[in-house]
């Protein structure tokens, strides 16, 4: 339907793709093979496979896993119950609004909430315990990250639940399946695509968080993102930073393949 003349519209877009998608990836790969003086080397890669970086990668994955897990655990029931409410799209909107508030502001709020004299410690004191340092712990880091990611996980799950044909559920119930079986064998498998996109938008960013780690976790938690920021902006070692970025991109591709959606025919 669109003829050759509309192809001219592609020129700025092609320039954009070449300059901001292909060139940056190429540059990251190129820089990953440079040392501090700009000489060609594979030392950065060798460096990455030392215990320091490997254990950092593992912890980073472990944190990302925990964050994704808890986010999913909270988001799925929320999305499910939201589809059952009367004005579900209005409620969904109310879930989305907090995600539009600047990330930094929300993180900053937790510096106060988790502070030594903050409201959470005030509650702890009411129960007769001594105030504790909650900031700069693993708990605070995971809590804040989960808080940040919840809306992004709810949206795709909500959408896939919303598209689910309720007759499947009635059919399952009529055929004698319990509520739990219906959920396990019918609802969940049919909404797995929403869960997958939710995991995608949580896990990959969770691997590369660096702002929350700095503000909430002090320097206790080092993720791949923190390491890249450190190498680029503090140590000025762009080579090593790029190497970590290359691995982050590789991990991202693997995750995308894992959580990729298979198009089952139909109109794409």
């Amino acid at each position, binding site marked *: 339907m669109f003829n050759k003349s509309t192809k001219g519209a592609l020129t700025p877009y092609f320039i954009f793709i070449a300059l901001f998608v292909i060139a940056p990836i190429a540059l990251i790969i190129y820089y990953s093979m440079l040392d501090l003086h700009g000489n060609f080397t594979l030392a950065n890669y060798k460096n990455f496979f030392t215990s320091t970086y490997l254990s950092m990668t593992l912890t980073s994955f472990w944190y990302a896993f925990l964050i994704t897990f808890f986010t999913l655990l909270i988001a799925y029931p929320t999305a499910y119950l939201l589809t059952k409410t009367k004005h579900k799209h209005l409620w969904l909107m109310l879930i989305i609004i907090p995600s539009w508030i600047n990330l930094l502001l929300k993180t900053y709020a937790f510096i106060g909430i988790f502070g030594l004299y903050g409201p959470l410690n005030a509650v702890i004191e009411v129960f007769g315990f001594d105030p504790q340092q909650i900031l700069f712990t693993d708990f605070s880091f995971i809590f804040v990250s989960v808080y940040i990611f919840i809306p992004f996980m709810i949206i795709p799950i909500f959408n896939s639940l919303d598209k689910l044909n309720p007759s499947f559920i009635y059919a399952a119930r009529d055929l004698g399946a319990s509520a739990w079986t219906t959920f396990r064998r019918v609802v969940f498998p049919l909404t797995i695509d929403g869960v997958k996109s939710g995991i995608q938008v949580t896990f990959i960013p969770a691997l590369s968080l660096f702002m929350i780690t700095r503000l909430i976790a002090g320097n206790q938690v080092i993720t791949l993102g923190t390491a890249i920021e450190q190498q680029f902006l503090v140590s000025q070692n762009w080579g090593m*930073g790029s190497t970590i970025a290359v691995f*982050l*991109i590789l991990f991202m591709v693997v995750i995308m393949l894992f959580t990729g959606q298979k198009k089952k025919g139909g109109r794409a």
Partner: protein
Amino acid sequence: MNKLSAVSKAYLILVFTVLYAPIFYLIFYSFNSGGSMNSFESFTLEHYQAVFDDTRLIVILLNTVLVALLSGLIATIIGTLGAIGIVSIKNKKMRSTLLSLNNVLIVSPDVVIGASFLILFTIIGIKLGFASVLVSHVAFSVPIVVLMVLPKLLEMNASLIDAARDLGATKRDVLTRVILPYIAPGIFAGFFMAITYSLDDFAVTFFVTGNGFSTLSVEIYSMARAGISLTINAISGLVFLVTVLIVIGYYFVVNRGKRTEAGR
């Protein structure tokens, strides 16, 4: 539709409370005359006054809005043209390759985008500051606009264009009087998304901003690293107000789009 059980309601209420509590917590203490976020002394607007008295902060606020609007506008133009171009590609393989490339910037972690753009700008020789921030915001917004516009183009009936051509419309007329009005809701949605992404971005900006230029996110980061300052709370109050206004605006535009669609 069966009613929600008490437990379900309690759960939803809990989730909503946890989602909103930190935001209202911030706004509540923005009116605190004491200097902390722990004990409320008395009501004051001095922190809001402080925001408006701080010319540096006002400049940063204006910069942030300027970058968001400009990058949103440029990204919407490039993205819309790109989407129209992508639809015109007949070769399936080429089209899907282009779409995958389009998605790279959407799924890439911010840190990687920021780091690679930092290298790019240093090599090309773009001075870090307003220009580099604007260009990177355009860059990460274009793919979003494409994704918002594309479905509208795909659902468009080809006979509309054929009819216009048969009735003697020039190519330009077809674009401005048939295609663009049809995909307008997608374009608006893309523009709004681009603006919100730009306003919300921290990591990419943090990498490509120089010493002289700062956006709100980067400024809040450096203020928050220095400790608690109720000026940030006052900013939160303002940001929340603006966000709600934007959301209402967005909702309005999207719904209007839906209504005209239903009215056809």
